[in-house]
Each structure stands twice: as structure tokens, then as C-alpha cells.
């Protein structure tokens, strides 16, 4: 469990970090919480020539009110997301999903932005963020760039962040008053999601007015269950109606097969978990 030798830099500002990146060449990795990067380096599945530690850049951490949205620093930890009062009020889905990440130690080190840029298909933060239609704010050599969530996740462990860029903040629209739930399915408590479903619903007078559903680990990227979202709009607030709408959950998905289950099982799980997530989000 000894990584290959690497150079290390710990800049104090984003500007300084961009300078380091510009000089470092291609073979460089950004270190956020390190909960994925350090293990893969110790297993020598990654052996970057240089590691740039973002941990000393104070401006990248924290949650603040930004009008109709919350502006979340990329280095905000999962624990902060799970316990922050602004997030609890306006984006309970993120708090609930963050609370399911790994274990307390990991949640105190692992970061929101790090998990999003790592883009593990089984990671718990991408699908909820996708469901919120968040905007990703990237700093780069040519200034700031904004990427919509729908365009951010591009494939297995691949995002829109280019070489030389740093994800600095995520601007997430407020969903104040929406019901939210993150339904995660695992075999043991500390495990990546086999499948998970992020659901937010706005209930109006006994019917579902709006719904947003994100799927974890149902393809190489997080997905929106748009067919379910559409089927839920205007649906009565009953378990039966939700179950009927949830039967669309596996449409357009392309899940992997592995030791935890084959693709058919994952498609089935997506339907069951979507039903459960929406029922819980709707408070039924």
C-alpha cells in the first residue's frame, strides 16, 4: 500500500492553484478529500507525477445563500452538506444523500466537489445534483466557465472538467418546501450504491405538481428518470399512482452487471426503489 513517488503542491488560493496546474503538465491530479484518490494511488491504479492539494484553499469551502440558489464550495465536506442548516431548509435531498455516503470518517474528509468530479457511477452525490439542475462553476486558465449539470457527467469517471481547470463551486437552485428522499440500496452498510434513487416532489392539493428523479449506478453516468417525472406530474398522491409511474424507472438506463447483481436485477431495483423514494419524498 505504498504509492509511486509523486511531487506535491499545496497552494493557498485558486489563482495559485491554477498557476501550479499550468506548469505541471498532463500527469497531475487534484487532491480534495482524498477518499478515492489516495486508495487508488496506494493500489497503484493511479500514479500521477504530481498531486495538487486543494485543502488549504479556504475560499472553496462552505455553503452560502445566493438568492434563488445555494452556492456550495467544492471542498465542503459530506458531513457539512449533511448537517448544514441552509441545505436542510432548501435542499434536503442533498443532506439526505450526503448522510448515506460511506462512514462518518469518510464523510468528514470526503468533499462534495471531489465526489462530483470523481464521477463514480455508484457515488451518491452525482444523481441528486443532476436532479436539481445545478450549475457547475469551473475556474481555468481563461477565467470562469459554467456548465449545466446535464452536460457535466460525461461517462465513467469522466466529467466536463478539462485539464488545467478546477471545480470551485456548485450553484444549486433552491427547492424549498419540496419533499425529498434518497433511497439507497446496498448489501452492507458501508458500500457503494448497488442502485439508488434521488427523488424530489412538490405536492399541491393532493396531487403531485412536479417531480425530479435522479438514478445512481444505472448507467456510466447518473441519469434523470424523465419518464417517471412526467408520469408523476398531476398524479394523485396515492401509492398506486406512484407505483404505476415508477414502472418507467428503468427506461433509457444501461446498468452494469457485477457481483452485486446483473443488469436485469438493477432495472428491477430501479423501479422498486423509485416507488419507495417517491412515496417517502411525498410523505405517504
Amino acid at each position, binding site marked *: *500500500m*505504498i504509492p*509511486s*513517488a509523486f511531487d506535491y503542491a499545496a497552494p493557498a488560493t485558486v489563482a495559485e492553484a491554477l498557476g501550479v496546474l499550468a506548469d505541471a503538465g498532463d500527469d497531475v491530479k487534484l487532491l480534495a478529500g482524498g477518499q478515492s484518490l489516495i486508495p487508488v494511488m496506494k*493500489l*497503484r491504479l493511479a500514479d500521477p507525477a504530481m498531486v495538487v492539494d486543494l485543502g488549504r484553499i479556504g475560499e472553496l469551502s462552505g455553503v452560502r445563500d445566493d438568492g434563488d440558489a445555494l452556492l456550495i464550495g467544492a471542498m465542503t465536506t459530506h458531513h457539512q452538506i449533511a448537517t448544514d442548516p441552509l441545505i436542510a431548509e432548501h435542499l434536503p435531498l442533498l443532506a439526505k444523500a450526503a448522510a448515506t455516503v460511506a462512514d462518518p470518517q469518510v464523510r468528514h474528509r470526503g468533499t462534495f466537489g471531489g465526489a462530483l468530479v470523481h464521477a463514480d457511477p455508484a457515488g451518491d452525490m452525482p444523481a441528486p445534483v443532476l436532479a436539481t439542475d445545478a450549475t457547475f462553476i469551473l475556474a481555468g486558465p481563461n477565467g470562469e466557465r459554467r456548465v449545466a449539470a446535464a452536460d457535466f457527467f460525461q461517462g465513467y469517471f469522466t466529467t466536463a472538467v478539462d485539464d488545467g481547470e478546477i471545480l470551485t463551486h456548485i450553484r444549486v437552485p433552491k427547492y424549498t418546501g419540496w419533499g425529498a428522499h434518497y433511497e439507497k*440500496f446496498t*448489501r*452492507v*452498510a*458501508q*458500500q*457503494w450504491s*448497488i442502485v439508488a434513487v434521488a427523488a424530489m416532489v412538490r405536492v399541491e392539493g393532493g396531487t403531485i405538481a412536479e417531480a425530479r428523479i435522479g438514478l445512481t449506478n444505472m448507467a456510466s453516468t447518473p441519469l434523470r428518470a424523465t419518464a417517471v417525472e412526467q408520469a408523476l406530474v398531476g398524479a394523485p398522491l396515492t401509492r398506486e399512482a406512484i407505483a404505476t409511474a415508477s414502472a418507467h424507472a428503468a427506461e433509457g438506463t444501461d446498468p452494469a452487471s457485477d*457481483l*452485486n*447483481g*446483473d443488469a436485469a*436485477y438493477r432495472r*428491477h*431495483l430501479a423501479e*422498486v*426503489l423509485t416507488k419507495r423514494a417517491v412515496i417517502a419524498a411525498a410523505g405517504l
Partner: protein
Amino acid sequence: MTITEVGRSRLRKEDAHLITGRSRYTDNITLPGMLHLAMVRSPFAHAKITSIDASAAKSSPGVVAVLTGADVAAEQGSLPNAWPITPDQKAPAHPAIAVDAVAFAGEVVACIIARSAAAARDAVELVDVSYEELPVVLDLEEALKDEVLAHPDLGTNKSATWIFDSGEAGTGKPISEALNGAEVLIERTFYQQRLIPAFMEPRSTLVDPTGEQITVWSATQIPHILRLMLALTLGIPESKVRVIAPDVGGGFGGKLQVTPEEAITVLAARHTGKPCKYTETRSESLMAAHHGRAQVQKVKLAATKDGIVTGLDVHLLADMGAYLGLVTSGVPILGAFMYNSIYKFPAYRFECTNLFTNKAWTDAYRGAGRPEATFAIERLMDELAVELGMDPLELREKNWIKHEEFPFTTVAGLEYDSGNYEAATAKALELFGYDELRAEQVRRREANDPVQLGIGISTFTEMCGLAPSRVLGALSYAAGGWEHAQVRVLPTGNIEVVTGSSAHGQGHETAWSQLVADRLGVPFENVEVLHGDTQTSQRGLDTYGSRSLTVGGMAVLAAADKVIEKAKVVAAHMMEASEEDIEFTDGKFSVKGTDQSTALGEIAFAVFSAHNLPDGFEPNLDSNATFDPQNFSFPHGTHLAAMEVDTETGQVTIRKYVCVDDVGVVVNPLIVEGQVHGGLAQGIAQALYEEAVHDDAGTLVTGSFVDYLVPSAPDLPHFTTARTETPSTTNQLGAKGVGEAGTIASTPAIVNGVLDAVRHLGVKDIKMPCTPSRVWAALEEAKTTGGVQ
């Protein structure tokens, strides 16, 4: 004698240093000039080694040397198998570093010796090994065909076939009588998946070749056996080897081994003349430390229509993996005597074929043969109950040995000295709320509840206290089963207990202190327990098979008794009385009928000064004892599990788990409770979570804890544990052993419970581990075919 310590839940005296970072694991030890090792391992499960170019590695910064199999071929010998179960057992040579070929993925092909662990690790990738891949045999049914051979030179995959037949042994009728005339015949095949011991501390070895002796520190359960075997394997005089097992972080049988890495570290130290240390990574541990279980069980149970079992026929295929480790071949044989469990069968036959495959070799893993046997019979009893429409507990009671029938000689030829299955079961039922849960089960079925409830039952017994040496001899095991102890009385009256049992988490230091404090009447705090160093503890056979208290503990008591006898002579002399008039109570020797007395401490100092001792008295109270048990001990118990199965997802949840174990007289209830909890977790892990999976090429897919799922506290329920206490008559304390009990009983209890929840939906069996996807697939299959086998 006033009993104050035995039965007391003392906190473990060894825990303070372990939980405050003052531990001394092998990897914590650093010696001046120490070199570090890293292993180059085969990525292929079966291949010829055509060439090895280590030149780049040798010139890598910090590298001192690279050892290949060819470099050490003349001196590395063949790693030992101490249990040739038949005279014609076949076994391949087992070099520590592969020379010409590799037979499993992870086998060592070269060893880097460097000035730092990082330099050694960096150089691993610079060794260029050329392989010629060979076909692999991975599956037991395939191995049996002998079409693809794990070791082509052996000419077969069959290592040995071992048979027990009650008709031939004279312990019962021939099995043919039972099978031919059976009113009911239950025939099943069960799969014991391959498991990985997953001890907390990875294996580590440090060898210091400087000085007159070679000193070996190793994370091992068996310092004494390791010393003997390293000497025999590497041709070093035994007297020149000292083995120390410092703090050892768990073993579960996984450190009951003489490992290639231990031999290689000795060779590396010998080649360089410097201390060498090797500590494996977790990935290496999962891949190349020995695995466990891995059996196919083809079983037939014959019975009458009213539920009396008339015979059991067992055909076993046992996966040895690529080599025979220390007791690999004997593990299935340990199970052979346990298939009849707590029941009275008139006929029993057991046949096991040991087979080689291109996987890591298997060997002892918590329970070693006995969990597999218990699983098969307890699953069969449930299947028979279903077939007959009987309550599974009622069926068991019809067949088990009644408490008034002990001692009872079983159809497998063992004499069970004691037991009370009725008492343990009655207590378990009371704690469980059996009738209420059965009623809820009916309600959920009738309501077609998505979450179904099942009740899993397992009774069990096991043979513990390994082992009477004569029995081991009769089974062709190379060594005996005795244990040794020494009790030393220091001039201050403090006591040192030297034990041949080698603790690696069991709590011997505490339990042995309790035993001796009671026996010698000295304060618990005044007793120090020394173990795990062959220079301090010269004789011993180490720790495995729930043997420590029932064998090692008896040696401790016998040595303490000898101290008392010696001290009595001095006491009589000091008090000018005759020896016959001396009584020993609560640490004091007194003269009968007087108020004259003297304490053990005073006698200790008198012996130390030796100024005024009886004529001819050797001035020494220290005493040795070696205890060889005359019989095994037979703990037993009844375990009940209420299992919930979410039929929508296949997720299985343990709602309630009750176990009542009878482990005889208990020295420290807290330690026993801990053993039961840990054992349950490990048995539940086999039922629901753990499985070593290989791909078609023989590469371990579950090569990290991301994929090899070891449950942790949040995955387990609150356990309701209780005990009945039927003292063993095979040792003077009445203890039976508890190290493996939970592991043995819990696996079938859980699987029986899962099946009980979904059998009415058409599911007939689910392979372990019962993962959500497997449970769901079985339910789906049942919808279309009416059942899946």
C-alpha cells in the same frame, strides 16, 4: 477453596495496551539495519515460468537483492503438510518461491529485498517474468473429471479419498440398509462457498539472523509448530530457531499455517545476513493467504414416515486449492465426525475426495470442517420436516440424544460425555417467542405482505479440545494434541504462568490469571501470563480448534497443583507439622486443628533464600505440566433466527437472533460473550455476505474489501445470548470451548430462516451467500417454474 475468580466477568487485562496504541504487532518492530521485502506474484492461475529478468529491479535505487525460485531452489525445501490423510495421498511439491511453474494467481515468483519498503515496492514492477499460460481447473466437478490438471505432473487432480463407514467401523449399520429401505429419502447438494479468513492484522514476519540464533517474529497462531516446521523445511537445527508471536491481530485459522512468506523472509535474512521484514498488503492477504470452506456436499438422509432418521450418506468434494498447506487435507476429516451432530442415527457413511484446483490453497478457517457438516445436517433436518409436514423443532427432538442417555457413543464413533439439548432448546424458545413469531408468519403469508417472515433453527454440537494425541495419531496427523504449562513462583510470591497456548485475541492472559488466582489463592493482579515466545514457552502446540481452555487451561491447573504439593512440604517443615496435617485454602497453608498458618508468599521467599528447607528439598517451587486430553469436549446449543425477506428486492434482514450455548463451566462470561458475538458475525457472513469469487481465468475478483463483503456492526442485529451449563466430564474444570460455536450454528440458522420465509412461494434452495440478487432471482424463477434448485 473459595472460588472468587472463575465465573467472574473481568475486563481483559490485555486490552489496555491494545486499544491505546501500545500494541506490539510484528510490523511495529524495527531493528537496526533492517531490510524490507516485497513479493512479485503471478498474475496467472496456471503457467510455466519461462524466464525471469530481474536486472532492472536489481539496479533500482535501494534494492539490495532479488531472490527468484531458481536462486533458492536448493535450500527452500517444500512447505509442510502435516496431515497425510491416506498413505497414498498425492501432493505437489510446494516451494516457497515458485521455480518452474505457478499453480494459482498470487503465488510468489520473486522477492525484492531493499533498504526501504517503498524501494522494494517500486522494484516489484521492474521484474520481467515471462509466462507460458496453461489451462486452469477451477470448479470441483470439473476437477473430478481429470481433464484439465491443476498440476500436470501429478497426473490427477485427486489428492486422496477418505471413507468412514459405520458398518465397517462397527459403530452402526451399513448405510445401504438405511438407503434401500428408506420410507423417505431426502437428497440434496449443498455448496460451501470459498471464504477468506480476513483477520484484522495482515500477516507480517521479521527475521533477525544476527547472533547465534535466528529469531523469527511472526503474526502466527502457532509459534511452536512454526519453529519446528521452519527447521525441518529449511534444514536449520531447531535449537537455532527462536519464534516469537508478539501481539497477533486475529487469525480464525488463517494464521494456523507455515507460509511461503515466512520461509522466504528467513531465506532473505540468511542471504543478506541482515534483519528482513515482510508485511503483506490487504490485497495480498485476500489473494494469497489460505482460504477456507470450498466444498460440494452431496447428501442423502433416510428416514421413516414418522420422522425417525435412519441413515445419512455424505459424498464430499473438497477443494484443496493448488497445494496442501499445514492441515489442508484434514479439514474435511474434522467434519466427518460431526455430520450426525446431536442425533441418533443407526447408519452413516462419509466419503470425501480431496481435489486440487488452480486457486489459493484452503486450510483451517474458524470451525474447520465442523461448520460445513453442521450446515448440511441442519439444512437436511429442515428439508425432512418440510417433506413430512412436521414442525422442524419437533423433528429434531425426536432424533436427538436425550440428556439421560449420556454418555453416548455416536454412529461416527465419538463418545459424547454430556449434554442437555432439551434444556438449551427450551431456554431458546422462551427467549425467542417462537409461537408468536409463527403466528406472525402466518399473518404475513395470508396478507401477501411484501416482507415475509421466516424462522431459522439450528441445533449443533462440535468436537472441541483438540485433541487426544492417540486419536490424532489414528487419523494420521503428524503431531499430538497435548498442551504444556509452567507455573513459576517468584520470591515475592508473584506468579508467572507460561503457557503453550498462543493467544491472538482470545484473552488467555486474563482467563489464565483467573484460573491460577483461584487455584493458588493469590490476587488476580499478581499473576502474569507469558506466551508466544519459544524461548520463554519452550513447549506448546498453540491455539486453534477451541482447545486453549480445555487443554492448555488444564495444563496450567495441573502445574499449579504441583506447586501446591511442593509448597506443602516446605509449609510442614516451617510449622514443624507432618505433611498429612497441612491444609491449603485461600493461599494459606495451615496445620489442621490449629491456628498456625503460613502464606504461599512466605514459603516462596523461604524457598528462594533456601536457608532452612527440609533435607533434600530442591529449592524451587516452579512446576511444569503437560496435559493430553483423553476425550474431546462437546459444546452444543440451539440457535433461532427470525429472518425478514423483502420479496420486492430480495433483501434479507435479521430481525431477531437468539442463541443458547452450552459451553460447560465458564471462566469469564465476558470473554465467552465476545467469542459468541464474533462467531455469530462470522457465521452470518457466510450465510449472507462473503464469497471468494474467481473469474474464468482464475483471478480473484473479490480482491479487496469493496467486493469481498465482511459485515460490520451496523449489518448485524442485537444478539440475544444465553447459556445453559452442563459441565464437561472430560476435564477437571468442566469447560467445553467456545471459539467456534457461534460460527458453526449461525450459518444454517440464517439460511433455514431465509428459506422458511419464501418456501411457500416456491423457492426450494438458495446458494450461499444469500445475496439480494440471488434471493430475488430465486423468487422470479419460482414464479415461472414453481421452484429453483
